[in-house]
């Protein structure tokens, strides 16, 4: 037992017939962090989450959530937004939220007050007494999100929370996720959107073909990828003709209008390119060493 960990999985193994869905997975997520759970389709993310929440049983291994096994009491401290969205279509929004709160042990009256506040925050207060089926998909998704956070969970497991929302709502939800974190909640964020993961997560875990292939702090992962990979530079300059054709320095160039996106040859440091540009008499007005994006790291790992 480790009370500092929000999630601890050990040797989780789950098989459907002959297909291995999760293969000997270990996972530790410290409290009060946002951790990305990444991986291509069918990698085993959803199964991992379901095992974690004891919706399905693992063949072997142990699960610890918030420092205890996934008992009903522990599950009441968790909010889960599944990827497959769904709400009872015939229920009124407010009643549905009360019900979802009750299922997590929140008394109905408390749930009702909190639901009203949340509906206001997410600009749905006019819809409180409407039936779910009268709401647009985006609105339903927001209602479902409220259902996930209504009982003020200590651990939030969000599966693709932003998909299908317009940019304004994406920003709104992101803001709320960050607030939840500063409230002390831990967030496990499963997503395919690398941009969002990169902006929100301090840690990432990547699963591929039922196995973990990446796990750690995002900054360290990026640094490692940067050290191991090709250098990329954004270079904006006047003059210096001929420099870009120097294949001893440059592997490839892409003209982006204002600057050139330059990939350097292996072993060449950005500093060398800058020196060469100045030597060639160019006036450099933009020089930026680009970090490897999570997207590149993900694609690289997924293709391995």
């Amino acid at each position: 037992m480790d009370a500092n960990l929000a999630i601890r999985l050990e040797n989780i193994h789950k098989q459907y017939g002959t297909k291995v869905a999760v293969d000997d997975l270990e996972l530790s997520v410290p409290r009060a962090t946002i951790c990305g759970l990444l991986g291509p389709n069918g990698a085993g993310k959803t199964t991992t989450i379901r095992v974690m929440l004891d919706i399905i049983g693992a063949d072997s291994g142990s699960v610890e959530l918030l420092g205890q096994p996934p008992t009903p009491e522990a599950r009441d401290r968790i909010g889960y937004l599944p990827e497959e969205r769904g709400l009872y279509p015939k229920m009124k929004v407010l009643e549905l939220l009360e019900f979802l709160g009750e299922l997590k042990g929140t008394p109905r009256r408390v749930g009702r007050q909190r639901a009203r506040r949340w509906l206001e925050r997410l600009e749905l207060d006019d819809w409180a007494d409407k039936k779910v089926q009268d709401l647009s998909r985006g609105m339903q998704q927001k209602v479902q999100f409220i259902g996930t956070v209504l009982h003020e969970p200590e651990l939030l497991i969000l599966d693709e929370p932003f998909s299908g929302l317009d940019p304004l709502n994406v920003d709104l939800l992101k803001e709320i996720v960050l607030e939840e974190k500063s409230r002390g909640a831990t967030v496990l964020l499963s997503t395919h959107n690398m941009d969002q993961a990169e902006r929100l997560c301090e840690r990432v875990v990547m699963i591929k073909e039922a196995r973990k292939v990446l796990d750690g702090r995002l900054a360290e992962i990026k640094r490692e990828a940067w050290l191991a990979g090709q250098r990329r530079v954004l270079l904006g300059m006047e003059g210096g003709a001929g420099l870009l054709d120097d294949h001893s320095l440059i592997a490839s160039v892409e003209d982006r209008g204002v600057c050139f996106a330059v990939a350097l040859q292996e072993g060449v440091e950005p500093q060398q390119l800058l020196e060469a540009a100045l030597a060639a008499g160019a006036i450099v007005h933009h020089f930026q060493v680009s970090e490897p994006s999570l997207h590149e790291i993900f694609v690289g790992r997924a293709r391995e």
Partner: protein
Amino acid sequence: MSKLIAVIRREYLVRVRTRWFIVITIVAPLLMIGAMAIPLALMVRESDRVVSISVVDESGQLLQELLATEEFVEGRLRYVPPPGGEPEMVVEALRRQVLEGYLSGFLYIAADALEAGGIEYWGRDVGPTLVNATLEPATTTAVRRFQARTLGLEPSAVAQLTREVKVAAYRIAEEGVAREEGQSATVAHILALMIYMVVLLYGAMMLRAAVAEKASKTIEIILSSVRPWQLMLGKTLGVGAVGLTQVGIWLAVAGLLLLYAAGAQSFAGVEFMQNLPVGADTALLFLGLFLAGYFLYGGLYASVGAIASSEQEAAQLQLPVTLLVIIPLLIIPIVLESPTSNASVVLSWIPFFTPVLFMARYALGVVEVWEIPLIFTLQIVTILCVAWVGGRIYRVGLLMTGKRPTLPELVRWIRHG
């Protein structure tokens, strides 16, 4: 526990608040009353109706006797003299009158009718109430009286000889209350049909309830908060409470109506209403059998719902269960005919048939006291078996969508679920 109550509450409210619930609550008893009242009203009208018939008497000897029978004297049959002329012409004329609606029909008494005993009736309505219960007694009496008189008997002796003997049938019931045969059979039939109706109604409701989470894709959220058994138990109790509410309303309304009927003497002219043999004991057994039948069939329907991934699919899959409900409906006539036969008794013990058939036998008053604990024990054991199997199917089936399981897969679910 509070979660279970939350599930029960949701399942209950979501159904009781629908327009459907209100409509069914009001319409079903109206239909039931209609189903009871229409044949009754028809019977009453039938017996009050005056049937105008003509008589062609080629023997020339029976007409006087016939007109002196009580059927004609009391006015249930009204005599219309036939037109004169040749017999064929008369028959043809009467035929036309019947077709045109001036006459209900006519009796044709052949010249040798007294020796051969053959009398014909030609008419639009040749139903048993008219032919067997009215015309036959009338003609029989007429023939007997004529023959008795030709033997030279005194008119009083003739009356003695030809007096009809009525046999009133009473069934011996356990409580020592004798009930008239026809009534208790009707009541038994109605109660059995009602049990069938409510079990089917709420069983099918359970089918839709079981598939609701899969159809609305809420199952994962729900299962991250409650256990499958809590969900299924909550649903069963919630839908059952809906059924109890509705049946309770119906029984209360029926009780009030009966009180009113008993109180209103003018209305009590209809003998049927006067001494309906539905006591509190019958109502109690009705509730018990309804609950048992609901849990039994609700469990079966829920298992079917768990296999399906949409309401449409569930509707297709429910057929075997619905057939099982219909079988006792087909057996009811056998039980009504001979409720004490071994076949009837044993059939009414078979758990899947008990709610309908035992209800019928009880209403007929042929149930032994020791049978009641026996059948309820059988019911409970079967319900537990169904719940065990259904629970396993439900647990595995909940997260399965898309592909419908094959039979071997289903067996695997039950064994490992």
